[in-house]
Structures are given as C-alpha cells and as structure tokens.
C-alpha cells in the first residue's frame, strides 16, 4: 500500500452517482488509479462496472461526482476530452467498422476531419511499431470484417495506444478469448504497465482477476463494497464479496445416460460470413444427460444451435430423432419434435419486446389448439397459460398484460423457460442460458436444467463460461472452427486442458489417430 500511494495518481473518480429512473447504477463510487498498476473492477452482471467506466469515458454523465485524469477534472459527457486526456477504452462490444481496414479504423478521428488525404505510410509505420512494442500482431491493411475476434480486440487496444493512451480500460476483455489468448492479453497488459501505463481491468472472472491485478475493487448493486490487495486475498473471499453471500456451486446428482434422443451424423452447414459452419459433426444427445459445449464464441456454436433449433438445415449429414428422420426441418418441426429452445439472445430472438407476456408465452404454440382454432385466437386460454407460467416459474411482473420489454433479464428468461418446459420437452437446447443474469436467476435456471435432466430430458448446454460448463455437464465437448472434440466425461479434463482444445489444438491429432 505504501509503495502505491507514492506513485502518481493518474485517475481519480470521486463519489460518482448515476441513476437510470429508479435504478441506482452507481452509488457514490470513488477510486484511485496509480501510474503503472493494474486494478481490477470486479462485480456481477449489473453491478455497475460498465456504467462507471462509461461515465469516465464520457458516454454517460454522472448525476453527481467528478472524474480527474492526471489532476485535471474532465468535463462530463465528452468522450473527446477523455480521449485527449489519455484515456483509452476497449469496449465489451467492439466499436469497429467492418467495411474498413485496420489502419482506417485506428486513424479514424485522430486527425482534423477537413484535410486532403492523410499520411498512410506514417500511420502504418506507427501501428507496426506499436504492434511490436505491445505484442499485438495484426496486419494494418487487413479488412476488419475478415478478422477473428481475438484480432479485433487487438485492433481495439491499438486504437487506444495509437492515441497515446496512458490509461487503458478493458471492459470484460476475456469473454471472447481462449485461455491462451487471454494469456497473450495479460502479457500485453504487463508490457503496458512496464511502459508506465495504467490499466483498469473489468471482469467477473475471479481467477483472471487474481492473475493480473494488484488491487481489486468490488462493486455490488452499484456500490463499492470492498477494496483489497490481490496479494492478501483469495478467490473464495472475492466471490463472497462480489455476491454478498456464501456461494454454493450447484449440487449435481449422479445420473446414468439413457438412449439417444437425437443423433447428428456427419452434419455440415454453410459458413455464415466470418462465422464458421459445422464441419462434419457427429453428436448424440442422450436422455438424462447434460452435454456441455465449450468453446470461444463464434466457433460454430450458433450454427449448431440454429440447426438443432430448426432454423437451418444441414448441407450434408443427417439429423435423426429417437425414431424418425425429420423430412422438413423447420423451427416448428423442432418444437413439435419436443425440442425446448432457449435462445442465445433473449431480447432479440427469444421474445418480442413490445408484445405482452401472454403474447410472448404462446409464441411457439400460437397456431395450435387451444390457442388457435380455425384461424381464430382464444386469448382467454393464452392468458391462462401465461398466468400459469408466471405462478409456476416465479416471473416477477405486474401481470400478464405487461409488455415484456419492462421485465428484467432474469424474469424474461424465466418466461422463456416456462414457455418451453411446459411443453414437457424431451430435448433441451440451452444456448448461453444464464448470460447477463444475476446470481439468483443463474442458480434458478441451473436448477431447472438439472431437474429436467433428472426427469429424463437430454440437455445440450452451450456456454462460453468454462466454469459453468464444467460444473453442470456430464460430458463436455469442445467446438472450434465448426469441429467437435470427442466427449470428455465429467472431471476428466482440467480447464487448461480444455483450453488447448478451445484454441483449436488436438483436432488434427484426433483426425490422424482416427485414420
């Protein structure tokens, strides 16, 4: 502590408060960042981390409180001022224009707009130099649309460095990376610190926070609840601080797998732009078993989910259900085959924001009796069903006529769960079912999935969170570039070993061994 207080304070947030309507996103949060240190901002989804950093960067204006960078107070609500003061932010969602090159994305906004042309070769040389200094390999003239997720992130960091950022803010930067890519990122961060930069690392992943930061600030419900030195703490303490209660991992009872309810054999699908399709993938979904699909996002998870969900049909290979091969594979066919589909994006795909709960509850079954007869809707029956879901699945809402846009993510997910589980499905396709939910909702969703497994359903759990996969799955497969690894039984592989597969290694040996 003594050593740090001597170092120069480069960034000071002073009692920042920000409310959105009734929600207090930040409640008098203060923090200091010193030259040459990495601090971690730890908190659950919705704890207010991103809001805080958006205030610092000028995307939002705080209701009260001030931001000082190198001793100078920043004018509120002005990203340009934050950039000029040397603050660089790498957003969770990349802010890159796909139709332009790396170089163009980086120089965007760095020179006066009204100028004839700009010096491309000087910019290119500078980018190459920065790439070397910080270990961020990426070709300056590549089109961003053609880059991988990891490369895009490097471009984002280069954007900040190109502007001589002295303070880097990385918002959940590892969510899209393999464990190995994460190590590379950490190496870059260490280089930055050695060169005198300061870093704020925002995350909810405890082991990463432990690995990279020197200090941890814990946010909960918008309040700063703790500030601890990383050396003097451990993951267990941090977890308790973050959640505010003792965290118990879900208890998974033993279960024996039953017959295959769905068999995919050598299934291939078309690539979707830069997202790879499936490459001759075979997988059995068995009754009473949770199969976890691990992998870095954008490696074919969506292709698999879309295909099982009936949105796409395979180019080659077969889908076989328990006792039939579907002819016309559509979302409707998938639903009537007893597949419960929990989509990745509950706001944009899972629900219709301006429909009320009732209209959303029957979204997959609206065309069947009792909701629809001879083309006429029976809204009474529909409302009965949505009331039933609200009661059974504990959806907190003013009533079935509430527009679903007004519900929290957790309650929205509960409605989706109710919608699909009430059809007594034999197969459950859960794609990122807990992303963005708070701890309470997470454990609710998990327990429902485990109940379904106990009831004999086959569950396919797709998640980017390796810890979630390892905690719940009976068998883990890794997907990379559309290829599927062999199934690893529970406990047979460590996270690091799975990480090797996630990075795409192991598949080739597998292929040669098989041959």
């Amino acid at each position, binding site marked *: 502590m003594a050593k740090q207080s001597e170092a120069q304070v480069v960034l000071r947030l002073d009692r920042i408060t920000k409310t959105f309507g009734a929600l207090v996103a930040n409640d008098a949060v203060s923090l200091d960042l010193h030259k040459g240190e990495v601090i971690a901002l730890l908190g659950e989804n919705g704890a207010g981390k991103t809001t805080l950093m958006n205030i610092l960067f000028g995307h939002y204006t705080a209701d009260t409180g001030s931001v000082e960078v190198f001793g100078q107070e920043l004018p509120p609500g002005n990203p340009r001022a934050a950039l*000029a003061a040397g603050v660089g932010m790498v957003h969770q969602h990349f802010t890159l*224009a796909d139709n332009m090159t790396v170089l163009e994305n980086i120089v965007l*906004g*760095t020179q006066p707009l009204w100028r004839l042309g*700009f010096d491309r070769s000087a910019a290119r040389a500078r980018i190459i130099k920065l790439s070397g200094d910080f270990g961020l390999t990426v070709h300056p003239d590549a089109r961003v649309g053609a880059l991988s997720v990891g490369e895009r992130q490097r471009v984002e960091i280069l954007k900040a460095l190109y502007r001589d950022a002295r303070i880097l803010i990385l918002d959940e930067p590892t969510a899209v990376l393999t464990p190995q890519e994460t190590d590379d990122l950490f190496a870059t961060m260490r280089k930055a610190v050695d060169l005198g930069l300061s870093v704020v690392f925002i995350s909810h992943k405890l082991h990463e926070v432990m690995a990279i930061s020197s200090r941890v600030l814990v946010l909960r419900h918008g309040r700063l609840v703790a500030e601890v030195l990383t050396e003097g703490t451990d993951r267990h303490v941090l977890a308790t601080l973050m959640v505010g209660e003792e965290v118990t991992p879900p208890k998974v009872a033993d279960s024996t797998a039953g017959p295959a309810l769905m068999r995919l054999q050598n299934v291939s699908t078309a690539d979707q732009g830069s997202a790879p399709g499936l490459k001759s993938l075979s997988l059995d979904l068995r009754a009473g078993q949770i199969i976890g699909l691990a992998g870095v996002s954008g490696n074919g998870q969506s292709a698999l989910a879309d295909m099982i969900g009936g949105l796409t049909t395979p180019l080659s290979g077969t889908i076989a259900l328990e006792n039939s091969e579907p002819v016309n594979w559509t979302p409707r066919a998938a639903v009537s085959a007893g597949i419960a589909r929990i989509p990745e994006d509950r706001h944009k795909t899972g629900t219709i924001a301006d429909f009320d709960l009732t209209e959303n509850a029957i979204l997959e079954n609206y065309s069947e009796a009792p909701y629809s007869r001879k083309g006429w809707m029976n809204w009474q029956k529909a409302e009965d069903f949505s009331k039933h879901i609200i009661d059974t699945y504990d959806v907190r809402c003013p009533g079935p006529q509430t527009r679903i846009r007004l519900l929290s993510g957790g309650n929205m997910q509960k409605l989706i769960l109710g919608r699909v589980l009430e059809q007594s499905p034999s197969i459950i396709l859960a794609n990122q079912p807990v992303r963005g939910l708070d701890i309470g909702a997470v454990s609710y969703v998990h327990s429902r999935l485990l109940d379904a497994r106990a009831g004999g359903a086959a569950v396919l759990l797709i998640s980017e969170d390796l810890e979630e996969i390892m905690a719940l799955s009976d068998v883990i497969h890794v997907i990379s570039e559309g290829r599927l690894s062999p199934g690893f039984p529970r406990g047979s592989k460590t996270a690091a070993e799975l990480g090797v597969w996630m990075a795409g290694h192991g598949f080739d040996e597998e292929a040669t061994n098989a041959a």
Partner: protein
Amino acid sequence: MEILDILISASFWTAAIRIASPLIFATMGELICERAGVLNLGIEGIMVVGAFAGWMTVYSGYGLWTGVGVAMLSGMLFGLMHGILTVPFGLSQHVVGLGITLLATSLTYFSYRLALPEVTSPPKIEAFQPLPIPILSEIPVIGPALFTQTPLTYLAFVLVLVLSLVLYRTPVGLALRAAGENPSAVDAQGLSVSGIRIGAVMVGSGLMAVGGAFLTMSAFNSFFFEMVNGRGWICIALVVFGAWKPSKALLGAILFAAFDALQIRIQQTPLGANVPYQVFLMMPYLLSILALVVMSRRAEVPAALMVAFNKGER
C-alpha cells in the same frame, strides 16, 4: 439496323450524357446520405425544390451560378430538417422521407402559384449553354458527347471524382463510411455521429437539389409541375445498382440515361410508332426494378443503414 445507327451517333450520346447529369447529382447526393446510414426518401421532393429555387432565382434576374447556389441551399435546408428528425430524434426514415417529399413538393407548388398566379405556359429563362471544350470536343463521337455539354454536366462528372476521393482518401470520408457501418465506432473515437450524419444528409440533399436545378437550368429551361416525375426514386435504385460506390453509380446513371435516350429515339422510328408510347415511358421504371433485382444479392449494404444511433442506449 436503325438501333445500331442510333447507338453510334454522336447526338445520341450527347443526349444520354445530358439525361444522365441530373441523375448523377441526385444519385451522388443519395449515396452520401446512405453511406452515412440515412435513407433519404425526401429526394423526390428536394429535387422539385431545387428545380424551382434555381429557376426562380434566375427568373428574378440573378446569375445562373447564383441560381445553382440557391438551389443547393434550399436543398440543404430540407436536408437539415430530415437530418434533425431522423438522426438525433431517430424517427422512421421512411415516414420522414416521404413527409419531406410531400412538404417540399407542396411548398414549391404553393410558392410557384404565389409567384406566378395566372401563368398558363411557364416562362423560360436564359439557361446554361453548351460550352465546347477546345480540342477535346473534336474527338469523334466521344468529343461531342462528353465535351460539348453545359458547365453543370462537367460539374457532375467532377463531383463524382471529388466524392470518390473524399470518401476513400480523406479523414471526413472515413468518418462518413464508419458512421454508416458502425456508428459506435465513430462515437468511441470521439467524433459526433449526429454531426456527421446530419452533415451528410445536408450535403447530400444539397446535391439532390442541384440535380433538380439541372432540369430547369440546363435541360427544359422552365419550371412546370410533375417535372421531376419519379427521377428521385430512380436515383435511389441507382445507388443500390452502384453498390454504394460513386464510380459504379455513375456508370449506372449513364447506362440508364443511354437506355432512356434510346427509347426516345426508337419511339420516332417506324418500329416504335406501332407500339403505344406508354410502353416506352414505362421502360425506365421497369429497368430500375430490374436493376434492383439483379444487384440485390451482391451489394454490400452499409450495415447501419436505417439504424438510428442513440448514444449510451442501454
């Protein structure tokens, strides 16, 4: 054989380039708007305003270039209105665009009636005259076609060149393209998405108005109702046909105009006399639709076209 004769005649190509000129201005205008992420359906009405404003200025005794300037300014005014309603307020670009077209058209007709209450045949003005460029205009076919046009036509071609350079070679072009692809990329780099988009819609609308002014100041030499006659909508199709690239859109405009010039000439041949004239008049519209269908799968649409950007949206 007649068709072949037409195709190699200089007068045919001269006409084609003349017909293309207003389309080039307006298409480039629309292209700027769409590249920044705003579909501007006000184009049809803004062309009407430009046609009237330019003509009225000259009719009132001012110079031709003053007329072009006034037309441009009047277009920019409606562009500003369009931009404010669709960019910071994020209103439906379809509805606002059609509303601007109706407002611009009716205001123009209203003004025309106020200015010239009892005229039956619209008065003519002393319009732009062809300005042959020495030496170049003497090249066979190409010379008369490209180099004996009015100054406004030359300006249209210069505009395409300038626009290509600005879009791909300057900082402001980068910002414009980024705003139409991913506005948050612009915002994160400390630039104002609203500023860029409103600016683009204003400049684009100004060019649409100059396209309209071409009709009154370089083609028909007077203003009459219904004179724009769907040209604006055709320009929207040309932007798609040109895959949002100035050079390709230019090519599209010339091809389109050549076809239009051709059908006018075929109408006057014995072959054309047996076909109802409406069939020929339909051709430009059908051709535009066909162009849309052909290009539909290939073009790279700006990813954020018609997507409103609300800063800090949660």
